[in-house]
């Protein structure tokens, strides 16, 4: 834990806020970030408004270098186009920019994740006769394949962290952890949840608990994970949100709520 953290009042934040802050911190200034709506967009914009002012945000609607004033409700909000350095077509954003290998970090979320970082956002149950039909792939499969690294953001729940995903929408390291044939990027480099951070073991590629958020126990994480979770021997504890991070995030979210209620 750094000196900074010691200066902060503990627990004056929610676990969701901790997740967003931790994800924001994973972005370095100047990185090019392919962002989805929801948690990823929240984390990326928090990073841009705090330590990474020159973070380049790309949304799949074709907006490059967007600097939205509030969090977009949809991937195609007008604010994104109006504040972007360049707006291009959807074929171009996927062709020249994502597939072209120009994305440093892709942010993804999903309904299910397995121990090898494979993601399901398609269906719960069988594809042909689903229990729950989910929205589907969107831009995720190619973000997962082509971004130089992938950060996954998910609420930590046993029904989400599963032994085997019902459908591989976006590949992590493959169903058997065999790797990523045909993919350009390195795959998931971290999975950031409301409880902890998991990173793939360099040898086995299995997601391993490497950092707990403040106040969270290994037992809590294990209980919320649907497979026997490996933990690193040198388990870190995440620095809690700073005043600045919290204030910036809360102001962003209240501006957002206000803007979208109009």
């Amino acid at each position: 834990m750094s000196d900074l953290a010691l200066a902060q009042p503990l627990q004056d934040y929610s676990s969701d806020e901790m997740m967003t802050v931790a994800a924001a911190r994973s972005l370095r200034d100047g990185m090019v970030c392919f962002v989805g709506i929801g948690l990823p967009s929240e984390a990326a914009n928090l990073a841009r408004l705090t330590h990474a002012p020159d973070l380049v945000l790309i949304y799949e609607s074709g907006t490059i270098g967007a600097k939205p004033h509030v969090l977009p409700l949809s991937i195609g909000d007008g604010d994104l186009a109006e504040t972007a350095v360049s707006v291009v077509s959807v074929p171009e954003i996927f062709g020249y920019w994502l597939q072209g290998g120009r994305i440093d970090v892709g942010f993804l979320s999903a309904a299910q994740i397995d121990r090898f970082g494979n993601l399901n956002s398609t269906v719960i149950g069988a594809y042909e006769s689903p229990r729950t039909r989910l929205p589907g792939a969107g831009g995720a499969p190619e973000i997962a394949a082509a971004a130089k690294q992938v950060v996954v953001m998910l609420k930590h729940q046993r029904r989400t962290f599963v032994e085997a995903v019902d459908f591989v929408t976006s590949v992590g390291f493959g169903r058997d952890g065999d790797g990523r044939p045909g993919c350009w990027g390195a795959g998931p480099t971290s999975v950031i949840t409301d409880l902890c951070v998991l990173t793939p073991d360099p040898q086995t590629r299995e997601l391993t608990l490497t950092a707990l958020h403040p106040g969270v126990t290994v037992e809590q994480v294990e209980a919320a994970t649907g497979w026997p979770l490996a933990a690193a021997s040198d388990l870190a504890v995440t620095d809690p949100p700073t005043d600045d991070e919290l204030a910036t995030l809360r102001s962003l979210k209240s501006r957002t709520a206000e803007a979208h209620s109009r």
Partner: protein
Amino acid sequence: MAELCTLSEAVADLVNDGDTIALEGFTHLIPFAAAHEIIRQQKRDLTVARLTPDLIYDQLIGAGLVRKLVFSWGGNPGVGSLHRLRDAIENGHPHQLELDEHSHAGMAARYTAGAAGLPFGVLRAYTGTDLPSHTKTIATLACPFTGEELAAVAALRPDVTVIHAQQVDREGNVGMWGITGVQKEAVLAARNAIVTVEEVVDDLAPGGPNFVVLPSWVVSAVAKVPGGCHPSYAQGYSTRDNRFYLEWDSISRDRALFGEWLERYVMATRGHDEYMALVGRSR
């Protein structure tokens, strides 16, 4: 050459039962008025293609007009599920829905191939995913120079593509700006294209970035329908009706409520002006 006509005429003339239609617009410029007119005219047995089915296809599916959905992401953006879409897939209500499911990149490549007169598009996609085992329009092919294996997707060529744009000039050239998604490709891939516009102008004049012009002679029919993208938006003309998207969740969740909504707002209105007056967005 684009003919200026009413939306009702355009749909009657160009959309047929059994057609493959694409009503495109990526969050921005979604041609809702055209979908409502298709519902009023009860065009049936449709194959409907869109990257993001959105509320527009939730309505067509709920209205029982769709046989097959070609898509890549079927949610209510920022809100949750498309309940009519889910009801069709999960429960076969109002009837079974066939799926041709892709990623956005795959759908974009399919329209692009269609626009470019190619039978397929090539991309790095679907690697390691379960989509290819459920989707017949995905294949693999080897690079003839390096041997590397890549994905191929079948070209998508709608019978009719419908888009909403900001402007048309007196010669029938269409201008749009802001987020333009796959609309150019979807229009050029189609046999016929219908465009609804906010405004008829003497000279096209971009009101924002990414100005795209479609020459008159690639468009079959243009209809002036201000607000024709509600609850989506037209940059420079209207803002997104986010509240409508939120409210749709409860309307769409309930079969009866949805039926009442459809009857009241679509079937019982004679056109888009009446719809707009009813939703309280008279212009």
